[in-house]
């Protein structure tokens, strides 16, 4: 009950290095003069207080705890007598592992300080307001520019889509089939169906192309595709670039006739 009166505020740490660094600073020590045993105890004490407060402890903190304990135990273990003559080597090895930790801490400290510098810069810079037209800028396509500009510097598909939408508005953008009205295709489809019914046999696609020109070919082809989709006709082609034969599907008799 009384506890509820207190608000306990533990500083949050970005990671084990951050915590270690904090402990070293608190002890007013230099990284190179810390005692592994002491820092390990303090580190574990902090983790304990976190546990008592039911705070979640990230796995990285536990890994560091294990590392510290390993370093500490190495320092505590008596050296075996047979290694006495290799005392110096042994010592060097011990220092090396602790040194590795110090080096890592030192490196972390440099970047930690740099992040403080960046924070100051951030605060300063945020006080300066720049001219901005607001909203998302969309690159306008000039005549000299290629469509490639649409992709340039775009980080998201949505950027590209926005720019593309803009480009289709400004340029004389002409989708290939915008003029293919539904009724033209319906018209052609009717014609194809009537002719097939009349002739009562499969006909090559070329028979339905009544006018010269590419447009007529396109319309005929689209109509046939649409009719195929609707299962009205079947398209047969025996070899590549061979004539495309159009078979009316509703009349099975036609096929048999063809077969016989």
């Amino acid at each position: 009950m009384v506890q509820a009166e207190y608000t306990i505020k533990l500083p949050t740490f970005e990671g084990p290095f951050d915590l270690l660094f904090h402990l070293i600073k608190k002890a007013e020590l230099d990284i190179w003069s810390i005692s592994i045993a002491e820092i390990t105890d303090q580190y574990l004490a902090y983790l304990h207080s976190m546990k008592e407060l039911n705070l979640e402890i990230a796995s990285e903190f536990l890994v560091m705890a294990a590392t510290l304990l390993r370093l500490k135990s190495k320092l505590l273990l008596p050296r075996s007598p047979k290694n006495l003559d290799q005392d110096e080597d042994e010592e060097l090895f011990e220092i090396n592992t602790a040194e590795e930790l110090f080096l890592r801490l030192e490196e972390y400290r440099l970047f930690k300080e740099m992040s403080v510098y960046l924070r100051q810069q951030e605060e300063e810079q945020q006080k300066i307001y720049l001219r901005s037209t607001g909203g998302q800028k969309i690159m306008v396509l000039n005549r000299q520019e290629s469509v490639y500009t649409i992709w340039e510097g775009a980080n998201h598909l949505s950027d590209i889509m926005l720019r593309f939408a803009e480009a289709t508005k400004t340029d004389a953008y002409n989708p290939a089939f915008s003029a293919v009205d539904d009724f033209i295709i319906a018209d052609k489809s009717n014609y194809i169906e009537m002719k097939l019914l009349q002739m009562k046999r499969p006909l090559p696609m070329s028979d339905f192309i009544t006018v010269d020109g590419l447009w007529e070919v396109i319309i005929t082809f689209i109509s046939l595709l649409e009719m195929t989709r609707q299962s009205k006709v079947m398209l047969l082609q025996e070899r590549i670039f061979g004539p495309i034969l159009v078979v009316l599907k509703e009349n099975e008799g036609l096929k048999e006739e063809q077969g016989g």
Partner: protein
Amino acid sequence: MDRDLQKRTVEALLFLSEEPVKIDKLATVLSISIDEAEALVGELKNDLASARRGLQVFEVAGGYQMGTLPELAPYIEKAFSEDVSSNLSTAALEALAIIAYKQPVTRIEIESIRGVRSEHVLENLLKRKLIKISGRKEGPGRPLLYNTTPDFLKYFGLKELSNLPSLEPGGDNLTAQEKDVTDTDNAEEVITESTDNNINSISN
């Protein structure tokens, strides 16, 4: 075009541009030398200051930009009540500091220095366009490499990467230091390149 008109043109260009304007861009527009252009910008800077105007010209991300004075920030915020851009997290700043000095750098390298996983932080920095993926490191797994962007310089009001304070030599690990220097040099090249692109896009 007399000099006075040139200076006014510089002012107008800096006023209009939303991005830093490179000095050679100004020089080309005015058909003057880069030295002359720099002199004009310098004068404009002084003019604004001595006339006690609300605007200033400053150098950032390899170019010049016009902005408001920092001391006016409280009033500007009051007037526009815009969503004040949220500050970066401490984790993000740590990661950025590492990338800025060690670029190009992999996620593992960043994590090993920070001692914590940093995927999430990097994702956010990518989203904010403060860093970019610059390629893959040769070797096992071909991990992605991260670099800072021109936006990074703009965000922190830095002229160029070499303007970052030098990392204090910590102990006698000279080799590590040397490596930092070369890495930063490489990164600078990358940055200049992309700044070029930026300026191009303004002119379009």
